[in-house]
């Protein structure tokens, strides 16, 4: 692949307007992420971190600037095209898991494949394989309610990876978990990264962020100096 940048953001701005009040959530973000990188985005709440994640995941579009994912410019895409990009390029892991309670694990995992137009037999095969990859080969028929928090988050990771996306986007994946489950999940994320996938992890927890190769700190809608040394210094203080 000639394009080594999985993600390219060029002067991305996002302004929310509510009547007369305008709020600039992102004030010109320029950022490249290479294929296979493990990036942690940190920042306090209200820093624009969530907005950045939404734009990276194509859940929202920038007010101005240019965003390319896997070489495709999504800045001008409509809702339908964005949905297609999300389905193909991005795997989401949410803090709230967002599993459908009425469906067994494998049905939850195959859901993105349904929207991608994959046939039923192929879907089931791939869903079960993805669950095996996260160590849940024996829980494929369990409903989310019958699984622990850590197991539910593993189902979410399986669901995120089943489409073999360009980018794994994890938003506070350990926010709702106890520390041992959290470690388990982060180990799986490490493993995903080692297998060559690009990972962007959003967190406010610097210990969690410490596992990444590269740190990006967001503050007031801008990116601060992105280096691990700066972070280490910040942790020291």
């Amino acid at each position, binding site marked *: 692949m000639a394009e080594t940048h999985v993600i390219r953001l060029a002067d991305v701005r996002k302004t929310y307007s509510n009547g007369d009040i305008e709020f600039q959530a992102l004030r010109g973000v320029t950022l490249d992420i290479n294929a296979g990188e493990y990036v942690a985005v940190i920042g306090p709440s209200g820093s624009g971190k969530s907005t950045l994640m*939404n734009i990276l*995941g194509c*859940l*929202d579009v920038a007010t101005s600037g240019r965003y390319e994912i896997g070489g495709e410019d999504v800045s001008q895409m409509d*809702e*339908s095209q964005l*949905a*297609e990009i*999300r*389905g*193909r390029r991005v795997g*989401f892991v*949410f803090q709230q898991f*967002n599993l*459908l309670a*009425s*469906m067994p694990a494998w049905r939850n995992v195959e*859901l*993105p494949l*349904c*929207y*991608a*137009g994959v046939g039923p037999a192929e879907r089931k095969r791939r869903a079960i394989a993805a669950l095996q990859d996260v160590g849940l080969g024996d829980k494929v028929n369990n409903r989310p309610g019958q699984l622990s928090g850590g197991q539910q988050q593993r189902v979410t990771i399986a*669901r995120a990876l089943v*489409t073999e996306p360009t980018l794994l986007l994890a938003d506070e994946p350990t926010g709702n978990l106890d520390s041992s489950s959290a470690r388990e999940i982060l180990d799986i994320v490490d493993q995903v990264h080692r297998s060559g996938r690009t990972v962007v992890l959003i967190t406010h927890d610097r210990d969690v962020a410490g596992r990444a190769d590269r740190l990006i700190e967001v503050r007031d809608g801008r990116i601060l100096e992105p280096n691990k040394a700066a972070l280490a210094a910040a942790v020291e203080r």
Partner: protein
Amino acid sequence: MSWTETIRTGLAAIRSHAMRSVLTIVGILIGIAAVILTVGLGLGTQKDVSESISSLGSNLLIVRPGSSTSLEGVRAGFGSLTSLTMDDAAALGSKTAAPDIAGVAPEASTAVSLENGDTNWTATVTGTTASWPEVRSRTLLQGEFFSEASAETAANVIVLGSETAQELFGTAWATGRSLTIDSVTYEVVGVLAERGSSDDTNLDDLAVVPMQTYFANISTSTASASVQTLYIQATSQDTLSAAYQEAETLLANLHGITDLDSADFSISSQDALVSTATAVYRTLTVLLVGIAAIALLVGGIGVMNIMLVSVTERTREIGLRKALGAKPGAIRRQFLVEATALGLVGGVLGVGLGITGALTLPNALGSSIVVSWPAAFGALAVAIGIGLVFGVYPATRAAKLAPVDALRDE
């Protein structure tokens, strides 16, 4: 997402809030069943009324003596009750003078006692001509009706209604037997097929003899040759008004009447009765169907309501599906399928209930309900349509939800 997937998801969603879905379905069901039953009741009543009116005979005009204006009181005595004669009947029966009249049956009747040995039975005996069965739409169960020849010769022959025959002769074959009226012996030549009762007359308890025989032996009237009623059958439905004109003109001429307002006879048409009754019941049916349609509309609003609740409740799920690659169209289809399924299930159950009601209720109500298949299928289509139409707005709302906002929803 394939259609089977979409349908499976929609049905799963309906199951996941079973109670609400059942209530919504009941709303549709009641509307559809009401439409089928009211249309059926309207059609059934219409059919009952036309049947009871046409039991008199078809394409019939009825001539009675007496002025048509006598009800105003002014001419109460003007038209004599003996103004119609057999000559009138013969004239109306003429093909050249009245080409649109197929047959004429004059009638004069009185109640007398019929005797078979020790058995006696009082029935209405009617004098008429050989064209009576044709004009009054009667068929024979046994034997045959008396011929024109025996009518002319005033033969002592008699045709019995099925009930009269039963009373006099029991289950035995009545044709060929004889009975006496006032010591005069009559030969039974035929028995009429059963007809049932119209509103106030028993059409199966009667006896029919040739008019001349009636005048000679049975009539108690002093005006011995007068006819009480003339039944005129037009050649077809279309010539009924022509036949009416011909009958009116001919009778006016024969009776020397120049001003039809002072005629000593009146002509009524049973078709006029039928069409009046039909119009009344049609209005009634429209009214009932209108009410049923409102019930159906309320059912439709129920579908919209449940779908809006469903969309609101599942905002997060919609957001998730969008994040996983669902296009707006896929979300819209999912909710439309869900709404349509509610309509379809309600519709099918409603048609089932309506038809069951149409088959069982007549026993309890004593009035017929006609199952109108166009109405049933129409109602079913309407039910599905209601699901679809009232589902569009909620589905579109779901499809338009921004994934970010939907995911953030608590």
